[in-house]
């Protein structure tokens, strides 16, 4: 029986050398006076928890931590299960204590704080469920999330042994669309949508994860950073340095995921971490932004006249490029990839689109293909820093430096 971690082993704390009876007589009665919020556990000698600490202990004791699944810069991921039901698996993401003083200097990492903040608020079948948060004695924070044994969409797209079709794509897009609509209806921008943040649950449901770059909608006049969203999925307004933007940024990323699901390769991938290169790729894939197709674009802070002049790609181009999507599917894709964010569909309009009402019907969840890298892959996914691509770390840019920028 440990002494409360908050009690320093100072000379005044001599409990340890006392007889149990005496120690007990000095100890506060904690179960009776705290009955308002805890269900009177048997009194244990020497336990001196704050109410908040007691609540925390109760949560922490619900779970048993198992083997390590993965490790990232800021977090370790473990498999775990409910103490009361070992068959009920969970993943426990434990934020690391930075070992260097300069990394500790900011206190808790901002990405972690955001992730906890938003996941605590958002509860939806297509958003990864935060089951509990608790702390351990060494002052690290543990997030208990659902267990994802089936990897993520990025792997599934890459795994040539997995065959999937238009009906499956429609099912996944439906899940993604509902997740994003739900975020926006809750006034939250995700700002890092990409296939490897879409985890595949045991039942086949695809769930949006990693809220480390998320934020609430800003006031209309307040600036936001434009250095968010992993480069390949970043919309042109952010590449041009827009400081005021909307849910349209997430819709662009969703469009890129849609295209990638259909092509099985990223639609606008750049082998460079320069925003200009990404813009050129977008010119090629979607069209060159100009005042005509996007009034006001030239007044964005980092606007530049593009060398590559490509007229906005028309329906025929998309039909040829994405034959499996069908006419309605192509229509939706084009609506999500409008250069001008004001003309882009909203998440709500995505869900109301005619594509959902034409054949094929989305595959039922239990019949969706779900091979993947399994649990180890989940460890990596969940532990990864936001804004970073798994395989192209070297070429990728800028979003991952967010917190380093804050440190300097």
């Amino acid at each position, binding site marked *: 029986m440990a002494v409360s971690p908050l009690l*320093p082993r100072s000379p005044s704390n001599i409990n340890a050398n006392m007889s149990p009876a005496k120690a007990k007589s000095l100890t506060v009665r904690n179960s009776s006076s705290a009955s308002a919020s805890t269900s009177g556990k048997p009194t244990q000698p020497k336990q*001196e928890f704050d109410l908040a600490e007691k609540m925390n202990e109760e949560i922490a004791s619900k779970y048993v931590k198992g083997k390590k699944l993965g490790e990232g810069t800021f977090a370790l991921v473990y498999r775990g299960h409910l103490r009361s039901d070992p068959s009920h698996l969970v993943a426990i993401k434990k934020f690391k204590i930075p070992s260097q003083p300069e990394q500790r200097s900011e206190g808790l990492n901002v990405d972690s704080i955001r992730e906890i903040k938003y996941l605590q608020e958002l509860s939806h079948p297509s958003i990864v469920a935060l089951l509990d948060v608790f702390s351990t004695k060494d002052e690290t924070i543990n997030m208990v999330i659902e267990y994802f044994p089936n990897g993520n969409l990025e792997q599934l797209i890459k795994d040539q042994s997995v065959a999937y079709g238009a009906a499956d794509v429609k099912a996944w897009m439906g899940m993604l669309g509902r997740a994003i609509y739900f975020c926006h209806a809750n006034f939250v921008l995700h700002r890092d949508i990409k296939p490897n943040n879409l985890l595949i649950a045991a039942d086949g449901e695809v769930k949006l994860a990693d809220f480390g770059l998320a934020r609430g909608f800003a006031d209309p006049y307040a600036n936001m950073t434009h250095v968010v969203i992993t480069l390949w999925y970043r919309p042109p307004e952010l590449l041009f340095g827009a400081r005021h933007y909307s849910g349209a940024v997430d819709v662009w990323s969703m469009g890129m995921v849609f295209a990638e699901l259909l092509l099985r390769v990223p639609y606008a991938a750049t082998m460079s971490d320069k925003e200009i290169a990404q813009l050129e790729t977008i010119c090629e894939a979607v069209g060159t932004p100009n005042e005509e197709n996007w009034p006001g674009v030239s007044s964005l802070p980092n606007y530049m006249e593009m060398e590559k002049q490509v007229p906005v790609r028309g329906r025929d181009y998309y039909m040829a490029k994405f034959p499996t999507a069908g006419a309605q599917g192509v229509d939706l894709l084009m609506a999500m990839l409008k250069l001008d964010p004001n003309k882009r569909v909203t998440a709500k309009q995505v869900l109301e689109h005619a594509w959902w009402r034409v054949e094929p019907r989305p595959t039922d969840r239990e019949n969706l293909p779900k091979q993947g890298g399994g649990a180890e892959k989940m460890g990596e996914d969940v532990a990864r820093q936001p804004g970073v691509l798994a395989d192209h770390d070297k070429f990728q840019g800028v979003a991952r430096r967010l917190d380093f920028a804050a440190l300097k």
Partner: protein
Amino acid sequence: MIEDDIYRSSTQYRYWSYTSEALASLRQSTNELASERVRAAFGRIRDAKKVQNAQQSDHKSGEGVEGGQDPAKDVETLTVEEELRVVHWGCSKIIETGKVTTPPIPMEIRATAIQFLRRFYLTNSPMTYHPKQILTCALFLATKTDHWHIPLSTFVDKIPGTEEKDVRAPEFLLMQGLRFTLDVRHPMRGLEGGVGEILKLFEEKMLRLDGPDPKGRVGKAADRASQFLRVAAQMTDVYFLYTPSQIWLAALMAADSDLANAYLASKMDHLGPAAASLRAKLELTIRSCADMLSNYKSEDEANEVEQKEMKKEMKRIGRKLHLCQNPEKMDLVAVTKQKTAEKREGSESDKERVSKKRKLEREKLERDGDVFGPSLKNSNA
């Protein structure tokens, strides 16, 4: 999905909304628990002294042992009422602190920090942790949760008399007290939207306003209401007892009750008699919240005699708190260090730590290998 459903799924509703009875009883049990712990802590000191004295008296026999008073018996602990006054002092300190920085910390962020502090002290007592230890940390945490993050070194530079380690030390404790919920839903934006809607309704002749300058009247009411939200709403329990939309409507009610009633009428008249009971309930709720807001009197608003009285009372509580502050929790930096050290002992050898450090340095080098550095810096994420 209607807005009420969204609000009901928020942690503010699920964890931080109470009936006034539940709120009072929670504070009561926090107070009782803390009081007993303070007595126990003083008791330990007393026992330690006894042992010491006994040892000393072994050496010099014959001298009196029971010289001093018994600190555990004498210690008079704060009442719930007094604790609340101390927390209020912390809240007003946050408002002041945010004002003195350049640029000032936005009011919404200060409001978040204040609510963090108020939530924290539902399950913690000022006798255990004095608000002066917690409040700058609450303010710093609010800058991180509400996207106004500035480096800690800049933060402490802006606020005289603070040190980085003191801001950092209680962060974890605070998060725990907040039950790891960091979202605070404020009524300020709702008020702005509501005022905009009132003006629109007036233009469209859906809302009648008397008087020579109806638009000016709306503007005045909006300013007063916003003042209520910035101070009275932060210094009272309204966030625990009401929803954000009830709070802004109440602020409008407190500022200009005819205007607030006209607005409610424009929203509810067409619902007919079926909504009568709902409307009565709504008006009652908003009225009671409005009363809380308008009954709050800040020190600045009080007259001279009242101000003296308030200061005197605060001094008395301050002295009392000085005597019953839990002696084992005074130095939070030390407490935190102790805690982390306890856990880390043996878990990681020095050698491992060094190799990890090397690895991190190497990774950092690789990451920052681009001589041009990151292409862009953000100012406010």
